[in-house]
């Protein structure tokens, strides 16, 4: 069962996942509308690991065609809210 999560809770979980993938990156000053790749120097493998971690954390299916929607923090929040509502 998907219990509703507050946006703050989702945000903090996403930041935790990013922190695990790029431990040396500063996620506190992350700009929500700029892509993770540009801000955190993620490569395609990091991004794949990020998407897989989102899938495990939030129990959502993420088809490859939807990857672009998960490239920013706000994009992730919008997708997660839609998927879990």
């Amino acid at each position, binding site marked *: 069962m998907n219990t509703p999560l507050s946006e703050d809770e989702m945000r903090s979980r996403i930041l935790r996942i990013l922190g695990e993938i*790029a431990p040396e990156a500063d996620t506190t000053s992350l700009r929500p509308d700029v892509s993770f790749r540009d801000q955190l120097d993620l490569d395609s*493998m990091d991004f794949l690991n990020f*998407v897989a971690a989102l899938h495990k954390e939030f129990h959502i299916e993420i088809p*490859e065609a939807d990857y672009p929607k998960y490239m920013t923090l706000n994009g992730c929040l919008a997708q997660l809210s839609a998927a879990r509502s």
Partner: protein
Amino acid sequence: MAEFLMPTLGADMTDGILVQWKKKEGDRITKGEIIAEVDTEKAAIDVESHTTGIIERLITRPGDKVPVGAVMAIIREEGRPTTSVASPRTITTPLAPPPPVHRIESIAAAPSQAGRLRISPAARKLAAERGIDASTLQGSGPEGAITLADIERATTATAGVAKPVGAADRQGRMRQTIAAAMARSKREIPHYYLSTTIDMGRAITWLKDSNEQRPVTERLLYGVLLIKAVALALRRVPELNALWKDGEASRSERIHIGTAISLRQGGLVAPALHDADRLSLGELMQNFQDLAKRARAGSLRSSELSDPTITVTSLGEQGVETVFGVIYPPQVALVGFGKVVERPWVADGAVVPRPVLMASLSADHRVTDGHRGGLFLAEIDRLLQEPQSL
């Protein structure tokens, strides 16, 4: 009786520091099992044993810096009796002269001034790096000056084992290691360069379809297709899969693809994906992910650093279209891939947009000629046109 030696984990590694033994004297060890952790310029490496047997004697102590090739331990091979002469423990003369442990800093310290610490510049720098208060130490150098060896000993004494090298220091040393290997490459290897543009349309379409069937945790990156294509093309042109040793190329039976992985703190490593030609794309992807993760966490295995028989570098992520690589000695070839870009392409007499990729080969002219190199790139192209058979 087999000797476990300080391995060479990179083209220009001269020595390493034993961080810790993973086995005790009397323990059984099998070939491929981790016997020790060794700190090098690039990372702390889990070193594997090349022998199966019983560990007879551990010679090197944690914290000791020993040169490549020095005997670190003695292993009694399986099925062989203990030395008939005497137990190694009772041998008074060591089987091999003990390696020169620590290069003693012999530069005399600055003339003593009242209250001034007598310490060599190198020792002072090391003490600062390791957070050791040199004024509390008893110097063993000329006139009681504190030497590098004293600092090494103090580190071992305070930490039990040598402290891992600090990140900033490691970065500086890694730069030096890369510089040495690349300078050697450009000094010794007569490179020739070839490139070709590959239509990636079929490969990308196939990958997209394949990934649609795969769960998110098992999806493939196109980089894995490139690695597999290189591995299979090497079967066709095996002379590129070789190491230059003692004035001649020695071909490798197995295909271990060194994959250049950039580290976030700066620098890069190119550990091996073992037997890349024999793994499925799924297995290659898993191994690649595992390798990248461990490379960045600094927990690579010795065989991964010493085994590559060729290197593949993909710089497409950075937006570049063509790579002109420098061969990593003693290898004799390096394959570079740029970014997949949409370009006008002529197919069946019509201009159509196609995703294309520039593949390049840097190869050692002592070993191969442009003709064979060209054949190799053409084979990579051909393989990528049949992605389902990769």
